[in-house]
């Protein structure tokens, strides 16, 4: 039976074109991928991610290639006749069970070593306790007598109200600015103890490569570090749905060179 209409390719072509024009004219192409980040950990995670991307693209090229070849080569309209004897092939089937298994094991091995490093909290020089609240963070520098809360900056908070009339594009670091950023020294292994006061939150700064849940009644830990040559301001956000203002409790970390950090810490301890 021939129910395939001759003009069936027309809608396909039109919409392929429409899809292309839908691409944003002013897209920032650096926003397509995971950031490399500013620590050994984040670069290793980025490396893992890129290995996975390339392996997946390679597998995709082979499998999609085979599918597309079959779709072009074995069309009834091109006179293809079905080979109804092709029902199984033990060798081929064994191959496409075993080869993926080997690829998977090869993928998993490098992640083990990285995971061990991620979970190793030893050798940290500074411990900061991070507590999530609905909807702000508290940072306590353990043993240093410094503690403060960190909330969404006033400028963002005003602009984000419905009907505020403020264009978010005019607000600097919209939703990524806080009143009191977390300040850390560069080149230092810093242990974060994570907990929460009400519901589960998650602390995440993409440039540090890690996120972890802050769970009420429990203490989680993770470590971060910033390369010694990369002081600067790094931004993140709560990554676990925590209620109405989940999208409005950002994290800002200012990484200072060690002497400046020491000076900052001293000053904070005095003013408190």
């Amino acid at each position, binding site marked *: 039976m021939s129910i395939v209409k001759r003009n069936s390719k027309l*809608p396909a072509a039109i919409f392929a074109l429409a*899809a292309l024009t*839908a691409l944003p004219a002013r897209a*920032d192409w650096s*926003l*397509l991928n*995971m950031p490399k980040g500013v620590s050994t950990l984040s670069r*290793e*995670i980025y490396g*893992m*991610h890129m290995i*996975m991307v390339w392996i997946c693209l390679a597998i995709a090229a082979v*499998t999609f290639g085979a*599918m597309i070849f*079959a779709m072009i080569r*074995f*069309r*009834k*309209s091109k006179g*293809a006749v*079905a*080979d109804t004897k*092709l*029902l*199984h*092939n033990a060798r081929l*089937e064994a191959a*496409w069970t075993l080869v*993926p298994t080997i690829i*998977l094991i090869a*993928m*998993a091995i490098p992640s083990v070593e*990285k995971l*061990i490093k*991620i*979970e190793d909290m030893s050798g940290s020089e500074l411990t900061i306790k991070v507590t999530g609240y609905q909807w702000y963070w508290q940072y306590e520098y353990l043993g240093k007598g410094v503690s403060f809360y960190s909330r969404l900056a006033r400028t963002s908070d005003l*602009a*984000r*109200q*419905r009907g505020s009339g*403020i264009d*978010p*594009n005019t607000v600097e670091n919209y939703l*990524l600015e806080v009143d009191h950023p977390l300040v850390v020294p560069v080149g230092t292994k810093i242990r974060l103890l994570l907990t929460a006061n009400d*519901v589960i939150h*998650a602390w*995440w700064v*993409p440039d540090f490569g*890690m*996120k*972890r849940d802050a769970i009420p*009644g*429990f203490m989680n830990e993770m470590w971060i570090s910033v390369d010694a040559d990369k002081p600067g301001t790094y931004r993140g956000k*709560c*990554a676990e*749905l925590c209620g*109405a*203002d*989940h*999208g409005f409790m950002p994290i800002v970390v200012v990484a200072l060179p060690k002497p400046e950090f020491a000076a900052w810490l001293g000053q904070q301890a005095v003013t408190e």
Partner: protein
Amino acid sequence: MTQMAHGHEAAGHGDQHAPPKGLVRWLTTTNHKDIGTMYLVFSLAMFLVGGAFAMMIRAELFQPGLQLVDPPFFNQLTTMHALIMVFGAVMPATVGLANWMIPLQIGAADMALPRMNLFSFWLLFFAFMLLLSTLFVPGGAPASGWTLYPPLVLQTGQAFPMAIFSIHLMGASSIMGAINVIVTIVNMRTPGMTLLKMPLFSWSWLITAYLLIAVMPVFAGGVTMLLTDYYFHTSFFNAAGGGDPVLFQHVFWFFGHPEVYIMILPAFGIISEIIPTFSRKPIFGYEAMVYAIASIAFLSFIVWAHHMFTVGMPLAGELFFTLSTMLIAVPTGVKIFNWTATMWRGSLTFEPPMLFALAFLFLFTIGGFSGLMLAIVPADFQYHDTYFVVAHFHYVLVPGAVFGIMAAVYYWMPKWTGHMYDMRLAKWHFWLTAIFVNVLFFPQHFLGLAGMQRRVPDYATQFTDWNMVSSIGGFGFGLSQLLFVWLIIKCVKGGERATAGVWDWPHGLEWTVPSPAPYHTFEKSPELH
């Protein structure tokens, strides 16, 4: 076996069994085809409701700042969108297909337990009326995400007990449906149809049914513990009373991971019916396909904690769940390769069911790749709870499960209605859907990688462009589905008459009965050739 179907004592006198007219028919029917139709219509209605919520979500996310909804209502939208799409659209659609097609595929007169069949439909119907009514109670609908994590879910207002009770009803309905499928398949196959001669759609549902029976009670238990924590001050999930909020996540995902296979396995079955038909060649590696479904089902029980790598698990736990998760790629790969091999040296045509099946093949595989990436723990610490995850599960659920269901509708609708549908309209629906689904979900990979977290009504301005693209894709996708509705209505009302074989007479008992399938079929067990 004939005793099983003794609800139809008048076997052989089908003309005495014309269905009652009007509304009474649909309220009192125990006919598998009628109940299947009701499930499918219900599913389509819920697909549109859940879709409307998604449109509101995409409209709010079209640009930064809050324009249309406030954050609490936004969270209600995301929660209800997920609950409706999972339990109201995808699952009932596959149950509807099971009702219609399993008896026709295995040569049974009806489902084994027809009254329970009707009961489970109406339970589901009222479960959803209850769930949807939560939008109108003080405090609004649940807003904790469909994952219902405590302690957040315990902040739900008056909707809380209603949501829990509706989940209990849905669970009871699903379990009954699953029991019905198992009893039907185990007892009512036509003589000579051994299990390994059974069509793959029926096979996929047999395994799905076991998954449902295994995990729905776990979910029911989990939400009951939430209920007692809320009302009776137990402390299952409250650290202050010696409990642990993370315990709920374990219970939830022990249900939740098999649940994703409950949604996708029937689609695997459908694709395994359609690709051979339009390749004019039997499925490649039939037994391997059966074993692959069974292994996926087994593995689905031992991978749940990959949804919660960031809760702070022991190293050994992280490694175990990484490896078990990656293992699922092996049987899934076997399925993809066998479908490709089925097309190999075939004689392919590209009618709408095949178009959807092919789109499934490509796009589900993309979802599989992102799934593999998410399984790698160190990388998951970045991906977790970002739009990358949103992109991943929408790729496996929309061009996966939903395309599978649409392919099934296009494949079997002529058998159901007796009419061919409007092919030109179907092709427009396909191309619009297949293109917009990518415009909608592909940019979400970028958003997630660049650092946009899930479940937020507003975002930093650098994410504007891809959110706009995604929203345009969303609106296009949503509007395209109206074509689908129109096409179905047109096809039910009339159209070119379909032959019994419909598509070049594929193999399978369902193609031996006339189109439309008579109200009663296989009152005598058919013979297998």
